[in-house]
């Protein structure tokens, strides 16, 4: 999108979220919405990350703890199932991995440069409870 210079910005700006006059936003999923360029959904904060969460579908129990506690709306959940992570919006804070209740965790933080498939193949085994 085209950025305005400091002396071209009008005082009291209006930023539209959508391109059309959308009214019924609550009933539209994110992929059905007509986002404007000025909506931060179209932006990315992926370069903030040092660690990234990797999602292992085999261990996940769809409890949705990660969805409710994600500060960045970066957990994609549709129809009560956890689908994955939106890497455009994830800042790598690690809350999702921290609140994940499964054993072993279905979300684990890895270095940003690590390959997802390699990490999935090396997923840790189930830990026994320490008494």
């Amino acid at each position, binding site marked *: 999108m085209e950025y*305005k210079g400091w002396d071209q910005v009008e005082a009291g700006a209006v930023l539209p979220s959508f391109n059309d006059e959308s009214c019924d936003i609550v009933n539209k999923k994110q992929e059905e919405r007509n986002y404007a360029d000025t*909506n931060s959904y179209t932006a990315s904060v992926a370069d903030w990350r040092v660690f990234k969460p990797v999602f292992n579908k085999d261990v996940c129990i*769809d409890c949705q703890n990660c969805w409710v506690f994600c*500060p960045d709306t970066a957990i994609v959940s549709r129809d009560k199932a956890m689908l994955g992570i939106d890497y455009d919006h994830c800042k790598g804070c690690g809350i999702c991995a921290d609140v994940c209740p499964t054993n072993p965790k279905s979300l684990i933080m890895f270095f940003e440069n690590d390959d997802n498939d390699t990490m999935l193949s090396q997923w840790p085994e189930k830990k026994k409870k320490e008494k």
Partner: protein
Amino acid sequence: MSKIIKNLKQFSTSNDRFEGAHLLCPGCAHSIIVRELLNCTDDNLVIANATGCLEVCTAVYPHTSWDASWIHIGFENAATAASGAEAMYKTLQRKGRLKDPDKPVKFVAFGGDGATYDIGFQFLSGAVERGHNFTYVCLDNEVYANTGGQRSSSTPRGASTATTPAGRVSYGKKRYKKDMVAIMAAHGAPYVAQVAPNKWKDMVKKYQKALATEGPVYINAMSACTTEWKFPSDKTIDVSDMGTDSLVFPLYEIENGTKLTITYRPKNIIPVRDYLGVQGRFKHLFKKENEHVIEEMQKAVDEKWELLQRREEAGV
């Protein structure tokens, strides 16, 4: 009509109206609190926002993170903006000039603790006294986090901040935290509550009750700040858990200024020392000469919990 939320799976089918790629710090509790409010209702929302972390980070030109009507004016007047919009809505409704009269609209104001406890206090007080139908949510991170961590009147005793630094002479802030919930209840607001993001169900219940209430509602939301409380970004929920379990942030609600209900009683009450220990801003309290501050804080927390329980029992 309010949305029915029975469990987390059902809640997760909500379509988010707060978008990602805002510039709040990784692990900030502000956006967890805001997301839950926007997801707990299907009604249209008009949101007024005071200056603070939330405003600065969600509307960085040229991007906005809000899929609901959102307005920002000044630091102090989020409550005024919300009450003005509400008054206009009522007028248009009376004149029959609303575009979609059947669709209910709710008015919400967000403010940080600086905008609520200090700078916007008079405006909030005025709006509550006038009895506008709106919900004010204070995102209480106990510091002016946006400008570099100066003390606010919400900062707890003993915390080291930019303007109350701990060192050889001082142990940090010397004054106790202002009890804003009690002050708003004393205004006679029909519903006043304290919430924390880790107890999402309690939070959603209170939000829905708040939005359904006619008249001014004040909600104090504990918002753990990774930057100024100084803990790792993935520990936000753990620190919030400790806050509610140590009763530093008791979860309760007050209806019509008097009827107090405690909504969360921790099974295992942990000592305040544990809650302080995970945060860098209280690090200096664990020195030998400052130990008395921790004991005093524990005593104050115990007294407050005792008072809440007695008030709940007596119903006054």
